[in-house]
């Protein structure tokens, strides 16, 4: 099993993600430079947080044209596991691997702090270790996290159980007050129809060691590692 962490110019959570996978989860991981046109022998790829290409034009708008994204698209189409965290989520939406868009936060502020998300779906490779309704305390740090999609797409996300995380209070109530950025339906993370691509605004890699205030985020990486281990056993 091997993880890959893509490095775009302007990524700034690449090393954090690498650290968590190698030191906390204890799995092999490689960096993948944005100019690469293949993902090597990686079994799961993570697009980390940051400000790829300065986030000029729109967040993720330029990164989606970088050479590595061709390989990521191909990998995802073959069923490969892809996770976009924060800027990575924005890139996946711009690239059309996930529906919708992430707009400027409703309050126009860059928001940085711990929030709670409720796990809405556990039948995904990223949340299979979670309990449905489980609340995770994880940080967010973004100016553009306000999830938007049209009504048809939203209905489809609900129908297909593709909303994986929603902003909630500490008890798991999804309320207007617990929505930090104005996201439609408190959406914090979604998957594609095939359930092998996940995008989420919170940073699980910044909440994977108690020393940093919460280790709730590491369950996502453990779920991924479990999925990969099972896939390896089956093949």
């Amino acid at each position, binding site marked *: 099993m091997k993880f890959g962490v893509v490095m775009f110019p302007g990524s700034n959570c690449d090393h954090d993600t690498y650290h968590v996978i190698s030191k906390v989860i204890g799995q092999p991981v490689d960096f993948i430079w944005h100019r690469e046109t293949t993902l090597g022998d990686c079994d799961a790829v993570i697009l980390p947080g940051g400000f790829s290409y300065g986030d000029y*034009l*729109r967040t993720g*708008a330029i990164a989606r*044209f970088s050479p590595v994204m061709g390989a990521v698209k191909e990998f995802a189409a073959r069923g490969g596991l892809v996770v976009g965290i924060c800027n990575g989520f924005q890139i996946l*939406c*711009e690239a059309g691997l996930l*529906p*919708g*868009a992430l*707009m*400027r*936060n*409703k*309050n*126009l502020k860059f928001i940085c702090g711990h929030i709670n998300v409720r796990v809405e779906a556990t039948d995904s490779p990223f949340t299979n270790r979670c309990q449905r309704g489980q609340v995770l305390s994880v940080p967010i740090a973004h100016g553009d996290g306000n999830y*938007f*999609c*049209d009504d048809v797409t939203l209905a489809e996300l609900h129908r297909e159980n593709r909303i994986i995380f929603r902003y909630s209070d500490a008890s798991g109530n999804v309320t207007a007050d617990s929505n930090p950025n*104005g996201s439609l339906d408190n959406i914090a993370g979604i998957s594609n129809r095939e359930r092998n691509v996940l995008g989420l605004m919170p940073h699980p890699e910044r909440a994977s060691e108690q020393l940093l205030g919460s280790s709730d985020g590491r369950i996502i990486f453990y779920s991924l590692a479990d999925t990969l281990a099972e896939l390896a056993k089956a093949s």
Partner: protein
Amino acid sequence: MKAKIFVTLKPSVLDPQGKAIHHAVETIGFHGIQDVRQGKYFEVSVNGALSLDEARAEIERMARDVLANPIIEDYRVELDSDS
């Protein structure tokens, strides 16, 4: 040849920046402002080797695929062959 591209949020999409500007100009004392929507404006110089039709096709494609995000934004292209 110069092209002007205007990118605006779709009418159905909320525009918190426009709202903040609206509130600010009212506070400053401007009257009768009903609504403010913020967008983006691009000026693009096109190589003279392209015909007007070729330039239009290229700029339209660029606006659609790169400059605007069709999920949340509309765009409008103006091409000025005299400039």
